[in-house]
């Protein structure tokens, strides 16, 4: 089994990814899913938003020299980020590009769950707070944006905003139990017992 890795705090340079309803086809176009590993997905993040048909940069924020810092990154997003296809390749691509946490107004359900499974916290806050945070990081992207799951805050320079995450999920990050496989297998006897009482697994024997 994998080792427990606690996620209490993520600090990194901010990357503002503005827009509502950014779907996972946009985050990672389908042609990059024709592969049997997640390797190399990082540079394909938002590929068609970043490059034109000739391979020239279109001026996407991810290629803006002001946001080209190396190392851990924290994304700031708007509403319903990660909607559409269930492809885990989307958070895998962002993770490989360096994004290890996201702060947003809201996240699509499947995307949120995929991020939990990868140890990438997605925290939410209000529209006004996101607007302030986006304005602050765009005015000066040279600080670290700190997502603190213990304090439930996102801190950027003098700006401190309260962020939320469902309590149980937050506890999984804090305890290092976000990788569910081990937790699920711990209940092996109960799994067998549940299966044994499902009529469709017992031939509707009554």
């Amino acid at each position, binding site marked *: *089994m*994998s080792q427990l890795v606690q996620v209490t705090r993520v600090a990194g340079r901010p990357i503002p990814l503005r*827009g*509502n*309803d950014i*779907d996972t*086809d*946009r985050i990672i*176009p*389908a042609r990059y*899913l*024709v*592969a*049997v*590993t997640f390797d190399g997905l990082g540079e394909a993040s938002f590929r*068609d938003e970043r490059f034109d*048909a000739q391979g020239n940069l279109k001026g996407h924020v991810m290629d803006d020299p002001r946001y080209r810092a190396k190392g851990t990154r924290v994304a700031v997003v708007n*509403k*319903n980020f990660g*909607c*559409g*296809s*269930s*492809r*885990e*390749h989307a*958070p895998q691509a962002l993770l490989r590009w360096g994004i290890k946490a996201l702060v947003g107004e*809201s996240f*699509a*359900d*499947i995307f949120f*769950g*995929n991020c939990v*499974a990868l140890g990438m916290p997605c925290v939410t806050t209000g*529209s006004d707070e996101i607007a302030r945070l986006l304005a602050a990081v765009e005015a000066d992207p040279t600080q670290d944006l700190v997502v603190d799951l213990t304090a439930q805050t996102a801190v950027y320079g003098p700006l401190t905003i309260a962020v939320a995450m*469902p*309590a*149980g*999920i937050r*506890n*999984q990050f804090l305890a290092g*139990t976000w990788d*569910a*496989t081990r*937790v*699920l*297998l711990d*209940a*092996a006897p*109960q*799994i067998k017992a*549940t*299966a044994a*009482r*499902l*009529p*469709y697994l017992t*031939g*509707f*024997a009554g």
Partner: protein
Amino acid sequence: MPKTLLDKVWEAHTVADLPSGQTQLFVGLHLVHEVTSPQAFQMLRELGLPVLFADRTVATVDHIIPTHSEVRPFADAQAETMMSEIERNCREFGITLYDRASGHQGIVHVIGPEMGLTQPGMTIACGDSHTSTHGAFGSIAFGIGTSQVRDVLASQCLAIEKPRIRRIEVNGALPAGVYAKDVILHIIRTLGVKGGVGYAYEYAGSTIDAMTMEERMTVCNMSIEGGARCGYVNPDQTTVDYLRGRALAPQGDAFARAAAWWRDIASDADAPYDAVTRLDGTALTPVVTWGINPGQAIGVGERIPAVEAFTADERDVVEDAYAYMDWKAGAPIAGTRIDVAFIGSCTNGRISDLREAARVAKLGRVRSHVKAIVVPGSQDVARQAESEGLPEVFRAAGFEWRLPGCSMCLAMNPDKLSGRQVCASSSNRNFKGRQGSPSGRTLLMSPAMVAAAAIQGAVTDVRALLGGAR
């Protein structure tokens, strides 16, 4: 206390309440395809774990498979690698694979129901967001990511939060030329693409009750496009009749016992809901998407809405859609010239979809500037269509008849748009770049509307064509 189907199925499959507040939920049927599973099998190998319930795990190939050729190895070496990988994984872990040699290959959300694998009261998971399709049978079915595919392979369980529930009642008889696809596009248009986040949708009302199972599948399929991870219809006589005699459904005396349990699992008459929406089915018209998400849709007789018609919150996406699709507010959508017509997908690639499209195809010929393809959802659908002479109807009208697969819905196989082509499509997503060209444009509509657009060369109200045929 009265309960919804969601409550009953959730209770029956709860293994444990996790400290996280999530449920450890048993997955009754795990469907697997070639795109979202290889990394999960690799993780399993690294953990040294077997597949816990290999007999509740079923695989097929649909996303990357070419629809113009059966020849192996595939021309695309990476697609061939993925095909070989799922063959190896299924062999190694003891999982049934419905490949082309089996005669039952097809889109995972088409073959599950048609083989009788999908049944009421089950929990069903698959690494594909359109798993919501199976909710048509009164199962709780949803898409998962690859790490969760690993979890289900290893433990047959998921750590998941129980959603809230919204009942969506559609009442009244649908007018001629208005289909299940129009119903779900109208629902998404009404509640928005974020409306279902955190919710399961229960579809009900006389319009839904009158639908065939295939129509209900079309509705449930697009629940995720409204943000709802799953959507379902309560099982009834239509459900029972559909399942009777299917190869993998209960047989003999067990079928009667199964049918009794299926009916019991339906929502109680006075069950509580977190929200209720009521819509008038008699007022619906054919719906076409004009934008870059499935909620940006209008009736075929309407015009591209002005930005002022939207809330401040939606306006950026609307402006983005105008620019990407090259629209001006106020332009009619009818008459929009198309380059490609695609009939198929897990939304609309079943036999009834092909019959409706063929009925329209008989009325004309595909315009010379249009490339039109028909892709059956499975080998079983293809055989049925062949027995009814549908391929000949389509070919005579100028459509290409292809082999089963996901095809042009999602651009992971050779069927793709090029440049700024406009595609009338019976699929489920009009996202930017979805159909394989980073600047390609998708107009979602019913299969009959796609066939009408193909023979007129432009978006057309299929009711006018069908009216003329009577």
